[in-house]
């Protein structure tokens, strides 16, 4: 039993590693074709992602909202609800946090707490909306959540351009909210590095979601619902309650992730800051890679984040143009998404079964 658990754990962790390695080999071909030294380019990329404390801290900082977006997907998808609304929920979470932390006239610490709570609420409400559309009108999650993402982004754009624009900005083009006061921000862990306490909070959330999904009655019921919703219904699980519980929790994770990005990194909402960065989508890729295992999601999120920060380093330190860097990042992401290790392990089991059968 333990052996099986270990194998499953290693598979979860090892899978991204295998995919990344094969992807790096393919990426090497692209780098070679663009005329750069492959080893130098990968050296720059690795240094830019994990090379020293500074770059590692940048990677972990970028990973923070990705982890939270991944947890949101883990909760929803593992329960059988293939919702893709993390982006919209994260946008409203980030925007709410930025507004509350900037405008609410209370003590700085309270601003931070209220901003986080507000972000959770915003994410949950927006998530419940898609749940309601599904329950009431059978609007499939894919359509409703994708459309709600666009709506959230445009609403946030409108507000940051026209209504909540930074009153202190000297540039009329600056579409961003006002900067949150220093005392209300999530402090950096080390002063010279960009890593902030939000990352550790996200890691804590990973542990909490892991416990929730694996050690509680709710987790058991939600997983059962994910495996077979009809069986779950037959087993006496209240499908309606389950749907809303899952959507709320998922929305809370995504919205909270948005608040961590605002309070710990950008200190304001900048138009398109969640949409363009694709945090929620990276979170979804991370969760898919890790088979919705929260701990695997954490590892995959850091790898994906490292890919982005390493890619930026590659672009700024070599002659490789940004389009080629994006191509390399894309190739690596696609290959990371191929669950190679799963395929290998399935084939291995198949062969062993076959061999066993032949022996008998």
């Amino acid at each position: 039993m333990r052996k099986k658990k270990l194998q499953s754990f290693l598979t979860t962790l090892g899978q991204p590693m295998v995919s990344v390695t094969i992807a790096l080999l393919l990426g090497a071909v692209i780098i070679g074709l663009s005329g750069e030294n492959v080893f130098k380019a990968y050296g720059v990329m690795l240094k830019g992602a994990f090379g020293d404390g500074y770059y590692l801290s940048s990677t972990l900082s970028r990973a923070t909202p990705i982890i939270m977006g991944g947890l949101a997907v883990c909760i929803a998808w593992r329960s059988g609800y293939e919702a893709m609304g993390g982006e919209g929920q994260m946008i409203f979470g980030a925007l709410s946090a930025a507004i509350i932390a900037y405008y609410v006239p209370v003590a700085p610490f309270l601003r931070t707490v209220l901003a986080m709570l507000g972000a959770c609420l915003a994410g949950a409400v927006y998530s419940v909306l898609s749940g309601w559309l599904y329950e009431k009108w059978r609007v499939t999650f894919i359509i409703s959540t994708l459309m709600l993402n666009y709506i959230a982004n445009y609403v946030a754009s409108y507000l940051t351009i026209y209504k909540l624009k930074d009153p202190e900005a000297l540039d009329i083009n600056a579409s961003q909210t006002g900067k949150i006061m220093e005392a209300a921000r999530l402090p950096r862990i080390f002063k010279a590095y960009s890593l902030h306490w939000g990352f550790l909070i996200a890691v804590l959330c990973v542990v909490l979601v892991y416990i929730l999904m694996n050690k509680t009655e709710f987790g058991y019921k939600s997983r059962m619902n994910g495996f077979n919703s009809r069986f779950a219904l037959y087993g006496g699980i209240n499908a309606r309650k389950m749907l809303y519980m899952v959507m709320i929790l998922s929305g809370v994770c995504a919205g909270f992730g948005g608040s961590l990005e605002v309070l710990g990194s950008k200190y304001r909402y900048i138009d398109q800051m969640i949409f363009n960065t694709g945090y929620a989508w990276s979170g979804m890729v991370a969760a898919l890679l890790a088979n919705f295992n929260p701990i695997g999601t954490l590892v995959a999120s850091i790898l994906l984040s490292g890919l982005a920060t390493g890619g930026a380093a590659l672009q700024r330190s070599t002659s490789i143009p940004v389009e080629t860097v994006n191509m390399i990042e894309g190739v690596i992401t696609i290959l990371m998404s191929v669950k190679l290790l799963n395929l290998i392990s399935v084939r291995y089991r198949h062969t062993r079964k076959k061999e066993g059968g032949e022996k008998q």
Partner: protein
Amino acid sequence: MKKSISLILAMLLLLSSLVGCGSAKTEEKKEEPAAETAPAAEEVVEEPAAEPAEAKRIAVICDTIGTNLFLTQVADEMAAKQAELGYEYSMMECADSDEWQANYEAAAHEGYDLIIGVGWQAGSFAAECAEAGDGTTQYAVIDTDAGSDKVASFAYNEEQAAFVMGLMAGLAFPEEELYGYVGCFEGPGSWKYRWGFMEGVKVTNPDAKFTFNWTNSYSDPTNAHEFALQQHAMGATYIFGGAAACNEGIFQAALELAEKGEYIYSIAQDADATTEANPYILSAQLKNTGVTTGIILDKFYAGTLEGGCTELKLADGAIGATWVTNDGAYLNSDILTEEVLSACKDYVAKIISGEYPIVLPEEADYQFNEIL
């Protein structure tokens, strides 16, 4: 099971060896001055001796450049001045807001001597890094005001140039009822363009009507192409091209319509794009980010690059209008006649001397003509 574990271990080994390669290179780079004595033969061959006068290192942080003339001018100027000034430089292109922040912090961390940011996104990150830094790195931003006395900001008074473009349109097409406009984003940022253009047209055609379309992108010529065709169908002959790289769609529409014997005329943004191959591009509203980059580099090397905001106007030569303030590649003299150009030049002289002040009002206070 054993196979899986050994596979994972093998991959980890491979990854760690790659990391090893990375860190070795890093150290070599960090210890560049001592590279002469280092045994790493390959590196020594590449850089045989550390030059006594260290080349300055300059970072330019901007959006992805592509074919955006606003940014290609900066890249071209950086390349052109390198031979003269002998600096090393890196163009850091940012795909999203996180990359803006990460590149700013990384450039500061990597000890560049000068960091130039281009675009409004640069403002707050430049100010933050400059405030947090020890003063060894200098900061400059183009086309925005960072609002910090540690950042040299260079902003543009685009309403002056937009007014000249509107004036030119009104003089060249005085009988038109409707004037078209295709821009990137409708928002406060476009107001100085819209206002300048409308006011310029209204000098000769006070009852002119206007129609506006927005591509919501800096690089979507397909949308601009459709908007140009629609605005032509509505009756517009002149379409203000205010949509960065999307303008290419308007120019393409002009060529297509010309084949059918129908004509629209437009202008480019930021740099001259007039060409005999497309005589329907009459002029360009110049925002010469290349000139501004040159100003920054000259000041940096002269030791006179100081914090605070400088607003560049028609008088500074960083903004202007092709065939009025600057020459272009091709003049469509059938449309831009001597009279039209000399009238525009007169107004430019009056604007520069202050005789004809261009004062941008708040959008909320502006009395619009009919907008279709």
